[in-house]
């Protein structure tokens, strides 16, 4: 009694293409369901699962399937998520013997909505002499570092790396509280006291 799927909704009601979840977009034989659309359980129709505008993209050349892909472009911008290969800005939270934990705050110059956990292992701090790295002379809690996401890591944290010239500490505070100035790729100096502290410094142009 209540199992019939109504497939006769006209495509493009009201003359514009803003759709709501559940609306019929096309037949599964004519379209592939892209992002924001799904194939209904009986396998015959493609329906929307988001609110937004309909977008049809032509099939890629050289593929066997010549159906167009139909997508729904939603209106809400979702927060950035770190992907392997993206450059992130993170704040160091914990420094231990073999790794340092950091909270990822920006991904590729876009701030995240909720912070992600990252970890910089001893072997990923720099490119040379990786077994002689002293974590405490590379990072301190509270430093802002620019790092590269190596992989999605384990269930707890992303794996980050600072093993390039332009990666490493970009901003740090000294023990006295002043913002330090970089003087070489391993040292930063406090302007208030003149004290030199060891960090793995990023080469910022």
């Amino acid at each position, binding site marked *: 009694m*209540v*199992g*019939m*799927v*109504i497939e006769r*909704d006209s495509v493009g009601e009201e003359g514009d293409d*803003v759709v*709501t*979840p*559940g*609306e*019929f977009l096309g037949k599964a034989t004519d379209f592939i369901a892209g992002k*924001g659309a*799904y194939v*209904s359980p009986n396998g015959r129709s493609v*329906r929307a*699962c*988001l*609110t*937004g505008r309909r977008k049809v993209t032509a099939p890629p050349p050289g593929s066997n399937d010549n159906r167009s892909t139909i997508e729904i472009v*939603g*209106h*809400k911008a*979702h927060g950035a998520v770190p992907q392997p290969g993206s450059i992130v800005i993170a704040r160091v939270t914990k420094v231990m013997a073999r790794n340092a934990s950091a909270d990822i705050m920006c991904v590729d110059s876009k701030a995240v909505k*909720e912070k*992600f956990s990252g970890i910089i292992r001893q072997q990923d701090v720099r490119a040379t002499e990786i077994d002689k790295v002293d974590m405490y002379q590379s990072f301190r809690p509270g430093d802002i570092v620019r790092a590269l996401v190596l992989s999605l890591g384990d269930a707890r944290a992303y794996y980050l790396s600072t093993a390039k010239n332009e990666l490493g500490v970009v901003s740090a505070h000294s023990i006295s509280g002043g913002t330090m100035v970089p003087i070489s790729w391993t040292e930063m100096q406090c302007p208030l006291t003149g004290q030199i502290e060891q960090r793995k410094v990023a080469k910022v142009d």
Partner: protein
Amino acid sequence: MEYVNPLTGLRIDGRRPTEMRHLKGQIGVVSKADGSALFEMGNTRVIAAVYGPRQVQNKAQQMNNNEALVRCEYSMANFSTGDRARKPKGDRRSTEISLVIRQTMEACILTKLMPRSQIDIFVQVLQADGGTRSACINAATLALADAGIPMRDIVTSCSAGYLCTTPLLDLNYAEDSAGGPDVTVGILAKMDKVTLLQMDAKLPLDTFETVMQLAIEGCKAIAQYIREIILQNTKQLECRRGS
């Protein structure tokens, strides 16, 4: 007490038996949440806020790695009913309704698209005048659509009852506490599938069919209204964005 006047055929609040209460919906009322909505059905007013998809906070609750975890919490504000003395959440009725709303929304959210994440739905009743369960589901649907969470279809819910040998649509508190049967139906509007069906008290089977059919029609009317609200909201956002 005559819930349906034998002379005029009108109910105690002046509605006809198959007439629903006045609906009003508003999207984006809680700016911190990913999606939020305020929904009114007559005097019943409900606010819903959706957070997600975000990282699972309690690993122990995560049953299935391939799907998103949907959590729902229903609470009634202290000032929502006539007498103030009410424990807002944790009592049996709130726990039951939280479970019902969670199961209804879980059936319609495409959880397989967001593995290892969590979607939180918080619904709070600001003013209770019968049909709070239905109003909560409708508000949750609006909030989920606002948050951009992929759903199979718009879920809407409506209640219907049977008093003075007349099927009545959308009971208010006075009609609900009359002791007659109260059927709550939740459907996926365009796909015409039932996701929630609850009834208390007893009804003969053919009467039940009539009452359930009436509730389903009420749900479809609400779905029409909800769809208009969502489209209007999207057009307004585009207008503000300048496209």
